[in-house]
């Protein structure tokens, strides 16, 4: 008698990750978020992605979701019941900011798209080229974290102050920054210029 004692799928983390990445696609890719300096949306989108997966795939109650994610039940409910059609119209510029949980609406749109296309159950997480370009190098995340709140265009001194001490792929950031052309207009441009010097 064969006994199966461990799950063969249904990994909530992987599903939430897929929903999260699809949210980024809906918003035009990670680069767009960087360019428009909307990186502060990421935590809300991550949270909303988990809520939607836990609610619709793991059939958790709002109380369970709230406990698992460390949010209030009302937040979990707001996310799960956000009107995604209104949020879609808002993103397309057809509506003023609706009285809905925007990240919740985006996560719902992403989840529905993945479900309709049968991609939520696929084994591998497929990351778009644009995201890969930035995400496959963890230094980019650290650079973005350190320059958070910095006003662009930006000059060498301001970047030196924020990034000093970092070593990227064996190179000192100070040396890299010395070799760049200034001013740098956006965080995305900064990441690209650093990458060219690696």
């Amino acid at each position, binding site marked *: 008698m064969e006994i*199966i004692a461990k799950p063969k799928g*249904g*990994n*909530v983390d992987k599903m939430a990750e897929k929903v999260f990445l699809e949210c980024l696609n809906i918003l035009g890719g990670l680069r767009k978020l960087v360019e428009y300096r909307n990186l502060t949306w990421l935590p809300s989108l991550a949270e909303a992605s988990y809520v939607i997966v836990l609610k619709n795939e793991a059939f958790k109650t709002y109380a*369970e979701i709230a406990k698992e994610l460390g949010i209030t039940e009302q937040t979990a409910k707001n996310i799960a019941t956000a009107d995604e059609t209104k949020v879609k119209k808002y993103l397309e510029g057809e509506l003023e900011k609706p009285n809905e949980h925007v990240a919740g609406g985006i996560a719902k749109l992403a989840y529905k798209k993945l479900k309709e296309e049968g991609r939520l159950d696929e084994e591998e997480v497929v990351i778009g080229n644009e995201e890969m370009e930035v995400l496959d190098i963890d230094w980019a995340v650290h650079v973005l974290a350190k320059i958070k709140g910095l006003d662009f265009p930006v000059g060498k001194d301001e970047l030196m102050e924020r990034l000093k001490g970092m070593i990227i792929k064996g190179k000192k950031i100070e040396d890299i920054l010395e070799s760049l052309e200034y001013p740098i207009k956006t965080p995305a441009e900064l990441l690209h210029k650093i990458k060219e010097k690696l």
Partner: protein
Amino acid sequence: MVEYYELRELETKAPKLFGIPTGTKLDEMFYKIEKEGDRYVRKPLGGIPHLSVMNLTGVPDSGKSVLAEQFAITQANLGYKVLFVTVESPAHFLYTALKQKSEALNANFEKVEKNIVVIDASENDELRENPKALMDTMAYAIKEKKTTNTIIDSITGLYEHKEVMARQIVRQFFNFLKKFRQTGIFVSQKRSAQASETAEAAGGLAVAHIVDGTIVLDKKLIESRWDVSLYGLPIGSVLRTIRIDGCRLTGHDSQTWVFEITEFGTIDIIAPLNEYIKSRGK
């Protein structure tokens, strides 16, 4: 995506009506009506309807799991693959129960052992608490092992502490079994406030409303002179009954039947309650 069908388009998709044996008298209690010459005759189906999802409900120790296990052994012994999802009893206890019952039923245990695949959700929180994880695991077992019958004992264990989710969870598993063309049995537990002879179970009537049919198992303690006189049983003994409460796929006997759980742990359905009383009562 197709949003509607003309009725005739469904002819080729409609499942054939025949029985999947349970190894009990229940097999004769489901029937279909066929025309023979000028008259219509009732013909036993020979089991629960093929591709149906049936609900077994009853108070504790009424014989739900015993019946589910007997169904699994009967099917496995006939050479059909069975997926047994155990949510309550750890798999090694299930193994012992199936082995003992196989001997009592004269089943070939080697064959039974080979044809039953068990998912042990009793000792894995993720399988019990995350329906998606359980369904993905079941899909793996069904596809890899080519099972045709699935038993979940119990479905109640999947929403034990959140009965408000019962309808959604049961619906998901019901649709899942339909999608994978399984003949299924959900064992569902009753709560103390629920009348023992009804189809109601944990989660209210959610399970009964969704599934294709419900079989209710009950037991009565003989505790008064009136009971002794009516049932012809000694005081302190237990009278067990079984009844097909409903089935949307085919006709069925609607009487309450008396059954016994034999000393070997198998189900023996004896007679309709009214006949039993006539023969034994004073």
